[in-house]
């Protein structure tokens, strides 16, 4: 109660204080609450902020400033489309992935479709790595051996054997890539990583709150500053180079990476998570809020589809068996028939793939498709 009185008195004598009173519980813990409100340096509006926010978007005038109260001017955003447009993109995605389930694009019922502006740091990262290691190869070696033919005579035969060869590798990797990082700590959204790959800096424009205000987006503030971003992105690119170097080698001895980061830009990117119901079950789909297109989504599998895939699976089992039988017959022949052998191996592989896919689909909860 004491706080209320002080506030009233301050107001009465014409002093404004930067503490915005929202709910009663804010008043109870007064000292901790002071940092909860940030004063916009442009319009003087009082903005509620999270404790870790370092870059803040004003909910009144839309300007962006650092927590120290310095306005950031040259930052970007992607424009966004409205919820109808996003739903249209979503239904198109369903239509492309409906398979035999014709009713999916029509009967899917959207229960959540909200626009969120997520804070993203982007930069061009030039990285140069030097690495050293070795790989193992199979070296063909001609050898001779004594064999006994059907009449019991020994003769010398040459054959090809393989022995290991060790190839020293010293190479370099040079890349110059666009890197993005969500400016939130420990945060994850379904499909967000795929979405961030889709962001094209050519589609961006200067931050313009007026333009997107009517879409009523939730704007998330950044919790990671530019310095921390540049540190993190160095680590990420270096890790990627290391695993790329490692992939072709038996052992990687050494890998050193130098990076230079340029053109660091703060970007507000529109993202939307649609949750939808189909036949009473709940699914989700990540939408690029700029283009309205789906990025990643879950697709239901109907009973009919499961039955069909099971049939495919059984056909696969039969085909694999028939292929294997052909191979077996070919092997029994005095002169191996290459047509039998090749056809048999091909049929067996296709059959096994069909069997695996068929029964996997039967047992899957849902499919996941990229937009």
């Amino acid at each position, binding site marked *: 109660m004491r706080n209320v009185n002080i506030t009233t008195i301050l107001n009465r004598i014409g002093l404004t204080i930067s503490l915005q009173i929202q709910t009663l519980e804010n008043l109870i813990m007064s000292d901790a609450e002071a940092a909860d409100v940030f004063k916009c340096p442009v319009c003087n509006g009082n903005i509620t902020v999270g*404790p870790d926010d370092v870059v803040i978007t004003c909910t009144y005038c839309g300007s962006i400033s650092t927590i120290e109260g310095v306005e950031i001017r040259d930052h970007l955003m992607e424009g966004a489309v409205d919820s109808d447009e996003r739903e249209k993109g979503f239904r198109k995605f369903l239509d492309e992935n409906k398979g035999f389930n014709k009713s999916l694009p029509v009967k899917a019922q959207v229960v959540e479709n909200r626009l969120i502006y997520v804070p993203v740091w982007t930069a061009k990262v030039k990285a140069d790595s030097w690495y050293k290691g070795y790989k193992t190869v199979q070296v063909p070696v001609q050898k001779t051996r004594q064999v006994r033919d059907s009449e019991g005579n020994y003769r010398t035969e040459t054959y090809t054997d393989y022995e290991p060869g060790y190839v020293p590798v010293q190479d370099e990797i040079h890349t110059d890539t666009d890197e993005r990082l969500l400016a939130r700590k420990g945060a994850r959204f379904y499909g967000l990583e795929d979405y961030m790959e889709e962001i094209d800096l050519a589609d961006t424009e200067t931050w313009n709150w007026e333009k997107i205000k009517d879409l009523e987006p939730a704007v998330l503030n950044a919790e990671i500053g530019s310095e921390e971003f540049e540190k993190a992105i160095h680590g990420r690119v270096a890790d990627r180079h290391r695993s790329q170097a490692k992939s072709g080698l038996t052992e990687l*001895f050494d890998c050193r990476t130098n990076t230079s980061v340029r053109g660091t830009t703060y970007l507000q990117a529109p993202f939307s998570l649609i949750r939808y119901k189909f036949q009473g079950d*709940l699914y989700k789909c990540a939408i690029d809020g700029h283009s309205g297109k789906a990025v990643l989504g879950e697709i239901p599998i109907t009973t009919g589809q499961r039955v069909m895939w099971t049939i495919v699976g059984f056909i696969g089992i039969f085909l694999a068996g028939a292929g294997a039988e052909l191979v077996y017959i070919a092997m029994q022949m005095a002169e191996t028939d290459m047509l039998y052998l090749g056809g048999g191996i091909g049929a067996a592989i296709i059959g096994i793939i069909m069997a695996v896919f068929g029964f996997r689909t039967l047992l899957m909860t849902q499919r996941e498709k990229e937009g």
Partner: protein
Amino acid sequence: MARCAFCDADFEAGPGDVLLVCPYCGTAQTTEGAKFTDHYMIRVHFDQSEAQTTLLDWVSKQLGAPEDLSAKARFLQYLQIWYPFWVSRVDAHSEYHGLGRDANFYDEWPQYRGAYKRIDFFWKPESGQFTRRHEIKIAGTIGIDEDIRQHPIPTRAKEFFSHAHAEEFDGKVLHSQLTKEQAKDGAEKIAFDKQTALIMDEVEKIESRSDNIDVGDTYLIHVPVWELEYRYGNSKYKASVAASTGYVIESKYPRTLAFRAMGVGFGILMLIIGGVLIALAQGLIGAAMYTGFGTVSGGILVVLGLVLFYKGVSRKEAKEQM
């Protein structure tokens, strides 16, 4: 029992609880009564009925879940538990001297230029340094469910802790069994291990190292989770749903008898057919016939039969992927 140092109320506290949250005034405090201010929470966005609906809609799409689950499931228990987590920002700088592997190569293969017959490994000294900032999350209660412990703290903004908000949903705010100092020690150990992992990527053996690990801002955050239990048929099933995002952290769910019967039935049938085919192929029953066909088709059938049989008899737990 403990007594709040701020509102004088008596409240429940277990023997292991060292950082207490008064259920009346919401003040976080040590057992000695010192106030703790770095205390945050994640706001609830899914109330009880929304969490329940989300859970059932999500669960009903799982394989073998009954069609009438949403209609017939009865909730027996709906507790909102606020789990405490300690989050520390750790700046770590490590310098190391160690031994890394390298090799000399001898005797080039004449038919394969660049490949050598012999390889001789040797150790060479390497040194370097790592500077990293780690964000480390430690559960404040011991024996917390693994899936809840691993679940990422949702992206929606954290706010200063408001007891009134937790009370709106009859939430039970758990006390922390770790003090800030213990949490910091834990964070330091985890950061040290992370630095070690980074170094071990570079060298095989560490000869000497010096670490400067600075555990910075450490705060307590309470994360709301709906702990639900529902009855379907004669059995009870437990589920955890994140109250801020509606994600199903984990849920046990029923499978229909029809599904189980089909799984077990088809599984056994396929096992038998597969077994017979293999036996015929390998000549275990009479003369060998259809050797290639029987071995491959029979083999696939046996594997699939086992999978189906397992699906039919297993009791299932599902987790929503983020």
